[in-house]
């Protein structure tokens, strides 16, 4: 049963905000009309294909494209020679790496690294041409894990990479790109003050975002070094910037249209195919479509980091956490940039611990460069921290929720990453779970129960919106944030609430990069907060304008007019109120079209916390677990569209359940990926899961007009630890390595039985 606390703090109640309207893009999506990245066909369009490295690490001796170019139907073949050499041009290191990710230059760094691309009159010809490209490789030894990459004498991916953040700076290069550290208090004293100190090691494997739509785009370049790009992306403006940098073009030369996006979860915040499509199109002089196969998605995009973590924590017998020492090394894949920075900031952010040292390393290895994945980094470190917190609670015989409550970060706590927390709702999520029907029900016979919590910052950032009032008084909202989870529905509700008109009278469109001002990527759970804020700003400016127009109509002072429930009213009550439609009809006589654009770098993001509870049935004969019941409580600040808030919470939990039990990249000794398909990389299906019960906690964010925090990411943080804790509760077996697959669990159960 879903519970919404409609008005926990005496906050204003709303007519449209908080209702469950039909999403603006819904009809197109249930009728097959919605156009996703691969669904655009242009006259004369060519189909592209990408040649990829079969080796995990190799020097490129030569590339011969002549046979491919000579094939009938082939219109363009490109290699790194067709893109600017950003290293030679003195570009920033990150841009050089991005360019080398798009097309290998000199070396290939993982299996699937692009080396060339082809455009031809059909996919079959393009694929045949790719096969006809002759690349001579000199294989090099590879490193696949942080252990291998950090070992003495390990082969280096980047010959000149010196670890940043170490004092004094190392004299020799290594695969460690950087070190981050957060430290407070006196660690030795903290552990001395503890009655129980536990020390554990955890490992996790890379897992993929697993969006169902493979990366896809259509590029149409003119002969004037300008191009149109239609693409499935979480951020068409940042994509435009990255694509332009890679091409050596100014961003404004690209007009990028955001297709409907078939899932992203962070994985579509970066570029893969887009510069290739534009360059192929400009070389061929025809539009080019590039679409990945699922194997390419697994081998060459995403995933998030594999890791090794060492965690030591101390607690007193009466439940006070006294010290935490956390060490973690994250796989970045072929180029620096794992989410270890965010992981180190989130690691113990749920708790007020006086003494700690959190240290993280960003480590390159011969796997695909990691991409953002829902609360990047936080779920990985939470698996370790929330597991050891559970063990500590058990060791002092304390309820795991009570231990968390006794140490919970609250308003005024100095966060582990620095700033003092403003109003936050961590305690409220713990209490919501503690008081839930699920927690108050006895654990069913033969099952294990686990609890875990999670934190994510949420961000604001740059957004632009335009709002028009049509001549019939209906409203168009134009925004520039690709909608990955229902944000258009929220924008429509904001506008309906502000104007006091039915949500059916609002239409919402996502405009291309030439039509609306800049917007940051859809990520960091920012859109409902930040884009919502500028939409609200537009509506409020228009309401002022409407009052001014009404005053003109009535020949009165603007101070005598106010906007009430969809119409301008005169304070005296002597004038017949003017509706939005009436004011729209007379707009030419009161100042012209009614339209406002607002832009802002929106501040005021509010952190999200969640606490989750799971009951598991473990089949001790097979090691297979069944999730019998799952409840998640998350602080949304304010649920604008409760159904899609619940949907974000449920989706995050489902991904976390897959991460806990099944999902992992399986590389073989050659450094190539053995499970690059949905058959072998098993994400949860409908029959794996129960209903996922949601408790939407609403502790309003003081930084947003409606109290929004953002709900997209926190939900994926606790499930792995919650499930590990439930396994131990049910079986007495503790697993410290993800995934907690049937094989691993069965081994552990057998060891327990033998021991």
């Amino acid at each position: 049963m879903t519970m919404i606390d409609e008005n926990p703090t005496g906050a204003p109640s709303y007519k449209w905000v908080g209702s469950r309207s039909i999403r603006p893009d819904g009809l197109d999506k249930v009728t097959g009309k919605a156009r996703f990245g691969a669904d655009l066909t242009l006259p004369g369009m060519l189909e592209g294909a990408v040649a990829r490295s079969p080796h995990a690490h190799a020097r490129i001796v030569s590339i011969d494209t002549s046979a491919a170019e000579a094939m009938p139907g082939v219109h363009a073949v490109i290699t790194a020679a067709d893109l600017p050499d950003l290293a030679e041009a003195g570009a920033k290191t990150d841009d050089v790496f991005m360019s080398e990710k798009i097309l290998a230059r000199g070396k290939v760094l993982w299996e699937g690294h692009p080396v060339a691309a082809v455009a031809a009159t059909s996919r079959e010809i393009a694929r045949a041409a790719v096969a006809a490209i002759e690349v001579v490789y000199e294989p090099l030894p590879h490193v696949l894990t942080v252990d291998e990459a950090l070992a003495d004498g390990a082969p280096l991916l980047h010959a000149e990479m010196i670890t940043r953040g170490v004092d004094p700076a190392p004299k020799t290069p290594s695969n460690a790109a950087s070190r981050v550290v957060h430290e407070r208090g006196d660690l030795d004293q903290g552990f001395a003050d503890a009655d129980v100190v536990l020390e554990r090691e955890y490992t996790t494997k890379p897992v993929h975002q697993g969006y169902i739509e493979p990366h896809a785009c259509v590029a149409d370049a003119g002969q004037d070094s300008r191009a149109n790009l239609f693409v499935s992306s979480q951020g068409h403006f940042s994509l435009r910037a990255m694509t332009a940098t890679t091409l050596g073009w100014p961003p404004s030369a690209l007009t990028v249209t955001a297709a409907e996006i078939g899932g992203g979860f962070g994985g579509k915040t970066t570029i893969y195919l887009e510069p290739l499509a534009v360059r192929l199109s400009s070389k061929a002089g025809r539009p080019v479509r590039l679409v990945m196969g699922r194997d390419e998605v697994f081998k060459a995009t995403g995933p998030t980091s594999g890791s090794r973590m060492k965690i030591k924590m101390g607690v007193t017998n009466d439940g006070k956490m006294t010290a935490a020492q956390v060490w973690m090394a994250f796989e970045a894949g072929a180029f620096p940039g794992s989410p270890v920075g965010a992981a180190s900031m989130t690691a113990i952010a749920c708790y007020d611990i006086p003494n700690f040292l959190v240290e993280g390393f960003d480590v390159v290895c011969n796997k695909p460069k990691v991409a953002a994945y829902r609360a990047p980094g936080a779920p990985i470190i939470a698996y370790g921290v929330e597991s050891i917190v559970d063990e500590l609670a058990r060791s002092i015989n304390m309820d795991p929720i009570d231990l968390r409550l006794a140490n919970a970060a609250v308003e005024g706590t100095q966060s582990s990453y620095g700033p003092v927390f403003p109003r936050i709702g961590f305690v409220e999520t713990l209490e919501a779970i503690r008081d839930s029907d699920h927690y108050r029900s006895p654990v069913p016979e033969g099952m294990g129960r686990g609890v875990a919590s999670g934190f994510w910052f949420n961000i604001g950032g740059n957004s632009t919106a335009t709002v028009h009032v049509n001549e019939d008084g209906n409203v168009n909202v134009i925004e520039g944030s690709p909608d990955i989870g229902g944000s258009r529905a929220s924008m429509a509700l904001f506008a309906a609430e502000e104007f006091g008109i039915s949500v059916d009278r609002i239409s919402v469109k996502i405009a291309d990069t030439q039509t609306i001002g800049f917007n940051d990527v859809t990520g960091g759970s920012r859109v409902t907060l930040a884009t919502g804020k500028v939409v609200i700003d537009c509506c409020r400016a228009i309401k002022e304008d409407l009052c001014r127009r009404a005053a003109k109509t009535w020949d009165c002072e603007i101070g005598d007019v106010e906007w009430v429930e969809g119409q301008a009213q005169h304070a005296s009550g002597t004038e017949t109120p003017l509706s939005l439609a009436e004011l729209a009809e007379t707009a030419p006589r009161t100042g012209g079209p009614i339209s406002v654009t607002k832009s802002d770098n929106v501040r005021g993001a509010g952190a999200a916390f969640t606490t989750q509870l799971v009951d598991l049935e473990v089949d001790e004969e097979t090691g297979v677990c069944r999730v019998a019941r799952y409840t998640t409580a998350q602080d949304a600040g304010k649920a604008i569209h409760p159904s899609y808030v619940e949907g974000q919470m449920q989706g995050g939990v489902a991904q976390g359940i897959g991460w806990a039990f099944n999902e992992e990249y399986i590389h073989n000794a050659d450094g190539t990926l053995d499970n690059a398909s949905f058959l072998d990389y098993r994400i949860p299906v409908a029959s794996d899961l129960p209903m996922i019960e949601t408790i939407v906690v609403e502790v309003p964010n003081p930084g947003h007009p409606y109290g929004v925090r953002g709900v997209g990411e926190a939900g994926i943080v606790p499930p792995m630890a919650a499930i590990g804790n439930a396994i131990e509760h049910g079986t007495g077996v503790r697993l410290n390595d993800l995934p907690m697959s049937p094989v691993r669990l069965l081994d552990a159960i057998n060891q327990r039985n033998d021991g």
Partner: protein
Amino acid sequence: MSRTHINCTINGDETDFLSESGGSLLNALRDDVGLMGVKEGCGTGDCGACSVLMDDRITCACLIFAPEVEGRTIVTIEGLANADELHPLQQCFLEGAALQCGICTPGFLLAAKALLDKNPDPTETEVRYALAGNLCRCTGYDKIIRAVLDAAEGIRASATSGDAA
């Protein structure tokens, strides 16, 4: 490249098209017939995004050679609504927020239709197993399952009232 002339019924209309003989039904529907509601998520029959009804059976279009549909009846998402009226499943998916990104939605709707046509009163477990060949990464399936159960109830109710009338 040799091409095969294929005759079949698609969404109620007799249709013919030329398809590459080694090509899949998925590519034929998208490239040759222009029905872009059929989605490719994997190309290997693992995700169900390309699900269509072939002679009323739910089928992954990526696993069928186009010439295999000669003489058969195909229903895609574009054929699910009845002219100006949505199918109850479509209406329940909209009202129940049973979609987020929407890429898997056509496949789910057709798989659910195949289920309800055979079993108008399924249990939650039966719905979950009937839809286990369709992957959704956004929703955690909760609202999809509820929407299918709601649609089943609505269809049964209207059938009963129809009988009474």
